[in-house]
């Protein structure tokens, strides 16, 4: 059994009390977290610390199963505190602040042997630093998760398929087209074609900033897939710069019908479905 686990076990309540008293107000944040809850978290932390450091051989390795309880606890603490409005520094400082009471207790019980004391303090210091950094890592991971979710949401929001008329669909594309997005665009468009039984689909690329060879290839794939299902595709919204890039790059859009504006594409789509727009005066 390691000396640290031994000492923590013996002096648990003493460590807990001095830890809570000495903690700086900026770390404690009484305005955000209640006394009982805080005390509970601290007590759990000490128990987990004792459990994890019990075997001095494995104490330094946080990925060991002995540290499972500590990892769970730190994960919970750092996630709940970030939600409460703590900064990641404050959460890490909370862990670091346990050093002083533990060192005090170690000094009291091992004071007669300076060499062992120095060793133990060094080891405890390393361990607690690692625990503190672990909370930051958790914080970062939860942030990344939020970013990933937002990206996914944006991806879903950014590919709406709208019905312009009976049998005519429009797909206004906004933002850069990469492989993942094209896949989603293709799937939603084809699904919508089946659902609505539309025979013409207009892909509007006014909002696509650049069209390189890859984007062109993605567009052609989408058009070909739609054609295989029996729907015609028209690409509209080709801006002057894009027309120039397409020709300079030598990208052939094949025999896909292209139009400068959505309005022109809509007129073509109407005529392909056997409809026409007539002004009222002419109709009379």
């Amino acid at each position, binding site marked *: 059994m390691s000396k640290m686990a031994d000492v923590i076990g013996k002096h648990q309540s003493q460590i807990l009390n001095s830890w809570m008293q000495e903690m700086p107000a900026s770390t404690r944040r009484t305005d955000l977290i209640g006394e009982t809850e805080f005390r509970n978290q601290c007590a759990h932390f000490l128990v987990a610390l004792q459990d994890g450091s019990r075997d001095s051989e494995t104490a330094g390795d946080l990925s060991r199963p002995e540290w499972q309880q500590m990892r769970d606890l730190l994960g919970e603490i750092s996630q709940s505190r970030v939600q409460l409005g703590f900064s990641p520094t404050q959460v890490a400082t909370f862990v670091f602040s346990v050093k002083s009471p533990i060192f005090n207790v170690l000094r009291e019980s091992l004071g007669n042997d300076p060499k062992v004391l120095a060793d133990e303090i060094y080891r405890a210091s390393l361990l607690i630093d690692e625990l503190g950094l672990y909370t930051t890592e958790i914080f970062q991971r939860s942030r990344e998760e939020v970013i990933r979710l937002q990206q996914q949401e944006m991806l879903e929001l950014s590919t709406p398929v709208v019905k312009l008329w009976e049998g005519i669909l429009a797909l206004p594309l906004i933002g850069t087209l990469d492989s993942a997005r094209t896949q989603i665009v293709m799937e939603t468009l084809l*699904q919508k074609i089946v659902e609505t039984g539309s*025979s013409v689909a207009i892909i509007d690329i006014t909002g696509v900033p650049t069209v390189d060879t890859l984007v062109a290839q993605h567009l052609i794939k989408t058009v070909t897939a739609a054609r295989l299902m029996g729907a015609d595709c028209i690409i509209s919204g080709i801006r002057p710069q894009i027309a120039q890039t397409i020709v300079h790059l030598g990208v052939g859009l094949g025999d896909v019908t292209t139009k400068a504006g959505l309005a022109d594409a809509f007129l073509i789509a109407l005529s392909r479905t056997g409809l026409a727009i007539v002004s009222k005066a002419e109709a009379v």
Partner: protein
Amino acid sequence: MERIPILKMGEFLLVSIQVDMHDRLALALQEDLTNRISETSARGVLIDISSLEIVDSFIGRMISNIAAMARVMDAETVVVGMRPAVAITLVELGLSMPGVRTALNVEKGMDLLRTTSAKNRVARTPIHARKS
């Protein structure tokens, strides 16, 4: 051995693929269909693949081949009802079936066949016999 039924509807043939195509079945269909076109001198063939869930490159090529053969025998071919997943697979496999006409469903496919066959009929009539 199981076979895919070929139904005659007026001057068109209707092939509805309701089972999963395997290679031998596709070959049998190619044989049967070409025979039926010559027997009935059909003007058009409609292949409904709305129940087909899985295609590989062989089946994709067979469908395209069958359509090409029918065209050589002067029957327009329309493939209808391809599922989105099948369409994506074929495109990813690089089979874009350039010569095959397609339609969303049997109804639209029939319309397409009728209009093209009407056009062809005009084209086949000798010029002096055409109505002005």
